[in-house]
């Protein structure tokens, strides 16, 4: 079942089409990657999903009903890219305050904060102020305040920026944990290696339009270039063939691109016929990073301002 569905969402600013007719849906309990270069319209899209902006046209369906920002914010946790906390406020009070704004009662808020602070080993922070925390620590706190009210939809915009590998792993584990417990997570970034590791389903936007939509595997299958890696025990005598082009050639290892009309079995046969011992033979799928660059490159990286009729 879909937790969130966007239908033909549009949002135009005076000088650019920030979001231009985007539709996709997100399954309940999945980790969804919203990708795109800087200025692609991701933040605008997320702001519409969180009810900060109203779309010019199009519908947002949340939990089977039309999205109602006033009521549904209780079910959404949003960690924006431009994030921060009150510097002079005590951490405990700040967490209670933000939870109350989400609609939690004070007693509920205290209970949840206790759970999360214990879980992430932050108990001793209660009476400290934000200005006393390091960047990584305040990032952790920011994450806690985002998920404190048990939202069914958690939106994380660049959640790992500024985190060291240890803390990044800690947050990553928490994200998996939350998804296991049924929360749906939208994960927005332009760091592809993280997406590959975490996300089930991705959508790539560029210049306000959706240019890619599918599971990580589907996307890779779509953009694969029939490249295979072959490892042999001794160097092959004949390597040129009409079956494939050699992409890369090391002594005992070959990277080949199989030509149209032939299959991987044909290629394997070609090497077996040379009486070589094949140590490994496998397809090389493109990384998301390569796909991203391929799709985005060529379009202007920073968007040009255009007049909207």
């Amino acid at each position, binding site marked *: 079942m879909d937790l969130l569905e966007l239908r033909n969402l549009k949002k135009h600013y*005076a000088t650019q089409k920030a979001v231009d007719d985007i539709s996709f849906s997100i399954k309940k309990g999945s980790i969804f990657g919203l990708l795109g270069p800087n200025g692609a319209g991701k933040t605008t899209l997320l*702001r519409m999903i*969180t*009810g*900060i902006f*109203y779309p010019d046209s199009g519908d947002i369906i949340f939990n089977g009903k039309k999205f109602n920002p006033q009521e549904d*914010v209780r079910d*959404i946790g*949003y*960690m*924006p890219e*431009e*994030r*921060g*906390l*009150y*510097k*002079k*406020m005590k951490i405990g009070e700040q967490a209670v*305050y*933000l939870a*109350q*704004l*989400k*609609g939690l009662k004070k007693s509920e808020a205290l209970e949840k904060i206790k759970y999360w602070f214990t879980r992430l080993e932050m108990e001793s922070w209660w009476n400290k102020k934000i200005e006393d925390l390091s960047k990584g620590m305040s990032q952790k706190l*920011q994450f806690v*305040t985002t998920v404190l009210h048990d939202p069914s939809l958690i939106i994380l915009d660049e959640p790992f920026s500024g985190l060291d590998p240890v803390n990044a792993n800690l947050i990553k584990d928490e994200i998996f944990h939350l998804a296991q417990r049924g929360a749906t997570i939208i994960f927005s970034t332009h760091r592809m290696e993280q997406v590959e590791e975490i996300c089930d389903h991705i959508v790539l936007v560029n210049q306000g339009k959706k240019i890619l939509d599918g599971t990580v595997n589907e996307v890779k299958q779509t953009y694969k270039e029939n490249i295979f890696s072959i490892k042999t025990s001794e160097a092959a005598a004949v390597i040129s063939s009409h079956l494939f082009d050699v992409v890369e050639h090391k002594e005992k290892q070959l990277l080949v691109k199989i030509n149209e009309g032939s299959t991987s079995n044909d290629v394997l046969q070609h090497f077996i016929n040379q009486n070589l011992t094949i140590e490994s033979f496998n397809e090389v799928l493109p990384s998301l990073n390569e796909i991203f660059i391929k799709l985005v490159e060529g379009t202007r990286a920073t968007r040009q301002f255009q007049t909207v009729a």
Partner: protein
Amino acid sequence: MNKTWIIIKREYITRVRNKTFILSTILTPLLFVGLIATITFISVKNVDREKVAVVDPQGILKGNIENAKAITFEFPADVDSSNYKEKGYTAVLYVPADSSKEYRLVSKKQFGLIAEGNLEDKINQSIENNMLKTKYNIDVKELEQQKEQAGNVNINQAYYEGSEVKKGNSALAYGIGYGSGFLIYITLFIYGTMVMRGVMEEKTSRIAEVVVSSVKPFQLMIGKIVGIGAVGLTQFLMWIVLIFTLLGVASALLPTETLQQASDASQQMNGGSVGMAKNAATGFADFKGTMAAANWFLIISCFLFYFLFGYLFYASLFAAVGSAVNEDPADAQSLLLPITLPIIVGIFIMINAITNPSGTLAVWGSIIPFFSPIVMMARIPFGVPGTVPYWQLILSMVLLVAGFLFTTWACGKIYRTGILMYGKKPTWKEMWKWAFRKY
């Protein structure tokens, strides 16, 4: 509504708990009362009390000169400039033998301004008295009595208000009007700037987007404005209570005699710095007497109204500016100008209105919402409905409330857009567009 309340509470509590707030709330009245008390005290103590020996072989002054407040004259036989100190005199005054006016004062120290003035006055007067007596045979004391019998004319200004006749006191009205007008002027700045800073803090610390994903931007803005307004009211009420208590305590501690002396002494003073001390001292001495003459209920309730709605009218404008700028304080300065300008114009109109409370400028200034909080408070002490007819008061209040609703609505829209915009400072044209677009 509930969430706005949570925001109000946070804004209020974090500010009221702040050390600067507590200190300024307690110290300001202490400083204020302390200053007045010190000036009063100094003006009493500072008058030199001198004993002057007069060497007057011709007997021109003897029997004619009166002791002044600061100076006592004596006519000992065996005192001259060599031994006056031992005899306990501060100075010797030589009266010239001929009719020349060369009076010589010998003293080890410089006489104070007041004492010297006293001395000259007294000598002149005694010469005059002496001449009147010898030439026209007029006894000065008798003349004074005659003058007193002829009587003094006092103008008792009275005006009619309904069926009740009230005693007018334009000096008091002037003082109250000026004071409250100025107070509103200052508070508009202090609390307006506080709102702007609060908004800027939320924007630059990047918490605005986190909060507006939970509440509407309008709720955040209103919560901040109301919270800071409540802080202002708290501070004000505490100041009023503290000042009145401290003044009460101080005037109970100081003997009435001292206060009388302060008032008398101050009347003899003149000149720049002395003038200030004079005002304070007289003000303090007159404090109890004059308090009863004003219509305090009307003035205080109008003050609170204009303070509150004047603040609300301007606060959203300050919030809009705060939302539009980034870290750079210089940006805030240039955007603030169009807001501070009407406030400053308001204070100029007020200064004019206080001397001419029924003039055209005063009337219009007290009706237009940009100036009315400051100007109207300068007119109200002169009398409602005498100087300020009811229709003017009501129109002024209605327009101010309407103006507040309008600025809040328009600024709410600027705020909503501005708070999430990073990068360059928007132009006036852009902000205008934000305020008046349909969605």
